């Protein structure tokens, strides 16, 4: 029934984080999400700089995990977000949920990602070979988070 929240410069190991989530004989389902630096439709990304609001980030991530626990019966939750400079193909964010049943693990993991995307104070600055700019927030992320408000059911 543990929640692990980490905000860090270093890379993480998805394998290790998965293992940590399975130390529970009542957990029959583990869902992990990993977000990676990917190429843009129009250009190859050289690097990405992640700024955050240190005093607020962990508290906000903890709050999102708590909300997921109120909605679904889940056991372990792990949220890891990297900050600083990341290069192509590197992992940025990890969300893992362990649960007795698969549906609650899938739902909780997607909920956490949708809320993290619209609430957690992180900002991305992307560098391509010839330019560098702050990433704009996406309307699709707002819609993704909004659908959980209507969705009162599991």
């Amino acid at each position, binding site marked *: 029934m543990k929640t692990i929240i980490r905000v860090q410069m270093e890379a993480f190991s998805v394998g290790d984080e998965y293992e940590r989530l399975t130390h529970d004989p009542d957990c029959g389902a583990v869902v992990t999400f990993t977000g990676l630096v990917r190429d843009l439709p129009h250009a190859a990304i050289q690097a990405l700089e992640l*700024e*955050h*609001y240190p005093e607020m980030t962990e508290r*906000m991530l903890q709050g999102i995990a708590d909300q997921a626990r109120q909605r679904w019966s889940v056991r372990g939750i792990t949220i890891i977000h990297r900050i600083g400079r990341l290069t192509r193909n590197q992992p940025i964010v990890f969300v893992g949920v362990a649960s007795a049943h698969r549906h609650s693990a899938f739902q909780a993991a997607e909920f956490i*990602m949708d809320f*993290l995307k619209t609430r957690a*104070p992180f*900002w991305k600055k992307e560098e391509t070979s010839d330019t560098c700019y*702050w990433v704009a*927030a996406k309307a699709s992320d707002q819609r993704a988070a909004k659908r959980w408000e209507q969705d009162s059911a599991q």
Partner: protein
Amino acid sequence: MTRIRFFALLRERLGVSEWHYAQEKPVDVEALIRILKAESLAWETELNAQEVLVAVNQALVERSFIVNPGDEVALFPPVTGG
């Protein structure tokens, strides 16, 4: 004294990462933003041009939220992590 912090694009555009306001009585967020806009034409332009999220004491709040002297206020663009 109220500490107002800026992040990401907003920090770059306003040219400072924080600003201290000698606040004496409670005001709402809306009023606080008006005070910031009154500081300079550049700030007014920036704060009008962008969508701004506000956190008080590290929690997201609406424009009607009351800020007390000593609170930590943060203004930033919509978040783009994950």
